[in-house]
C-alpha cells in the first residue's frame, strides 16, 4: 500500500514560477525512496509540502489514502507522522543543549514527561549519541550534529522520515554510518524513508525506488534498475549512471560482452560477470 501519494501537486514560492508542477508520486510503505535531480529540481519544496510546512497551491497529498487536512490539527498530525532531517544540522538544532534539542519534538506533542524521557533515551541509544549528550551542540562535529538531528526527529515516532542530502559533507566512513543507521531505523521502527541525494552510487545500494525530478516535474520513476536503464534521459537532467552501471553498460554495449547492463552494485556486477564467464566456458 502506498503510504504517501501526491496527485497533481503544485507549489510556487511567492511570485516565482512553479517550483512543483503537477507532481504525481506514490511512496510504498516500508520502502526507501530516493529523489534525484539537480540543484533546484524541486526536491526540498516537495518534502516541505509532504510535511505540511508548505501548503500546496493545487493538488492533493494523501497519507494512507486519506487527503491531508490543512487545518491546524491536520497539519500538526501530519508533522508528527512525517519527520524531516534537514541538510544543514545547524538549521535544525536550535538549542545548545543536545538533550533539550532531541526532546523538543516529543515535548511539543504534549506527551507525559515519562513518555518523553522514554522516547528520548530510546532515540539517543538508537542513534548512538550517548557520548556527547552532555556536550554543547556547537562543540559537536558535523556528523555528530547530523545524528543528533536524526534523534530529534525519531522522538516524534514518525512513520516517514525525510533525509535531505544525508551524506553531504560527510567523509566516506561517515556516509556509511549514516546510511547504516537509516537501514537500522527502517527495520527496527518500520519507518518509510525518503531521501534526496546527489550521490548516485548510493541509490542502487540502499534504495528500493527512485524518482528523478527536474523543474518540479517527475521525469522518471521506478526501481533503481528501471531508472538506470534510461541513461540518456538521466544525462539530459544533469544526472549520471552509478559508476558500476557505467562500466557494465560499456562492457555490454561497446564490447558486446554478455553482462547485464542493469547491474549497478558491486555484488550484481560480480554475479553478472560470473555468469558471463560460465557462458563463455560452456560455449567452447
Amino acid at each position: 500500500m502506498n503510504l504517501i501519494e501526491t496527485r497533481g501537486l503544485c507549489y510556487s514560492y511567492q511570485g516565482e514560477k512553479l517550483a512543483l508542477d503537477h507532481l504525481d508520486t506514490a511512496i510504498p510503505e516500508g520502502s526507501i525512496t530516493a529523489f534525484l535531480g539537480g540543484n533546484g529540481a524541486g526536491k526540498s519544496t516537495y518534502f516541505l509540502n509532504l510535511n505540511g510546512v508548505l501548503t500546496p497551491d493545487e493538488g492533493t497529498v494523501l497519507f494512507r489514502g486519506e487527503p491531508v487536512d490543512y487545518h491546524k490539527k491536520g497539519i500538526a498530525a501530519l508533522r508528527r507522522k512525517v519527520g524531516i532531517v534537514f541538510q544543514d544540522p545547524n538549521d535544525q538544532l536550535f538549542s545548545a543543549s543536545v538533550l533539550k534539542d532531541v526532546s523538543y519534538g516529543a515535548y511539543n506533542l504534549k506527551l507525559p514527561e515519562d513518555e518523553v524521557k522514554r522516547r528520548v533515551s530510546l532515540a539517543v541509544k538508537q542513534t548512538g549519541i550517548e557520548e556527547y549528550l552532555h556536550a554543547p551542540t556547537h562543540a559537536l562535529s558535523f556528523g555528530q550534529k547530523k545524528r543528533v538531528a536524526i534523534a530529534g526527529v525519531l522522538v516524534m515516532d514518525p512513520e516517514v522520515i525525510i533525509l535531505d542530502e544525508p551524506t553531504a559533507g560527510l567523509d566516506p566512513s561517515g556516509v556509511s554510518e549514516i546510511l547504516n543507521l537509516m537501514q537500522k531505523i527502517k527495520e527496527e521502527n518500520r519507518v518509510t524513508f525518503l531521501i534526496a541525494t546527489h550521490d548516485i552510487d548510493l541509490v542502487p545500494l540502499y534504495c528500493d525506488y527512485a524518482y528523478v525530478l527536474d523543474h518540479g516535474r517527475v521525469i522518471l520513476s521506478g526501481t533503481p534498475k528501471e531508472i538506470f536503464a534510461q541513461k540518456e534521459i538521466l544525462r539530459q537532467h544533469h544526472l549520471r549512471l552509478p559508476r558500476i552501471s557505467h562500466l557494465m553498460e560499456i562492457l555490454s554495449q561497446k564490447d558486446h560482452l554478455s553482462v547485464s547492463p542493469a547491474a549497478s552494485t558491486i555484488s550484481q556486477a560480480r554475479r553478472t560477470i560470473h555468469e558471463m564467464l560460465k557462458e563463455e566456458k560452456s560455449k567452447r
Partner: protein
Amino acid sequence: MNQIDSIAYHSKLAWIDPKAKLCFSLVLLCVCIGCRSILVGALVLLVTAGATLFFARLSLRRYLHFLSIPLGFLLVGTLTIFISVYPAGEKLLAGIPIGGSQVGISAQSFLEGLRLCATALGAVGCMYFLSFNTPMTGLFALFRKSPLPEVVVSLMELIYRYIFVLWEEAATMKTAQNARLGYQGIRHSIASFGTLVGTLFFRAYQRCDRIYSALESRGYQGSLEALQEEYQPGKGWYGATFLTAAAALGIFFLERSVL
C-alpha cells in the same frame, strides 16, 4: 572566542545545580562590592580563584591570562580617577608641579585606588567562578524556572546557540578574504570588513527561514520549552557561601575597627 565557554562544559562542577553556583558567586560579589575593602577583595579573589583553578582544571597561568582581560580598563580607569590636581604645597605621595598647582596622587587617593582595584578584582573572581564552572545551558534551565518572561529566555537560548554558528561563518569568511589579500591597508580593510558584516547579516537573515521551517516541522508554535537537563544538588555550595561571606564580613569589621 569560545575558550571560557568550553572550559565551563569541562568543569567538574558543570553538572552541579546552577542555582548553588549562582548563589555562591552572587553573594560573594555583593559582599565584595558592599565592603569595598582591600582585605575582603583579596579574600574573595583568593577563594573564588582557588575554587576555579581546582574545579575548572585551569592552570594558574591561564587564569592569570583571563584575569588580565579587564586589566587595561582597571589601570586606565583607576589612574584617571586618582591622579588629580592639587593646590601647590599640599602633601602628596607623588606629584609634579605644573604652574601654580601640582598634579599627582595623595596618600588618601592611593589607598582609595587600591581599595577599588581589590574590590574590582575580587568581583571579577566571583564572575569568573560562575562563568568558568557553569555551562550556559545550566543558566538557561535556571532562568526558565525564574519569573523571567518565557520569550526572553527563549531569545537568550537562541541567541546563544546561533552566536557560534555565525561566529564560525564570520571566521571562515574572514579567512577567505585574507587569502585574497583583503586586509592590506586601512581603506581596503574597512571595505572588506564592511562587506563581510553585510554578508554575514544577509546570511543570518536567510538562515531564519530555514530555522523556522525546521522548527515548524517539529511542532514549533512560539515556545521553545523541552526537556531540561538534570543537575546534581549542590547543597555544599550554600554552606561554602555562608562560611566565606561570614569570614569576609568578619575581616571587614575587624579592618574597620583597626583602621
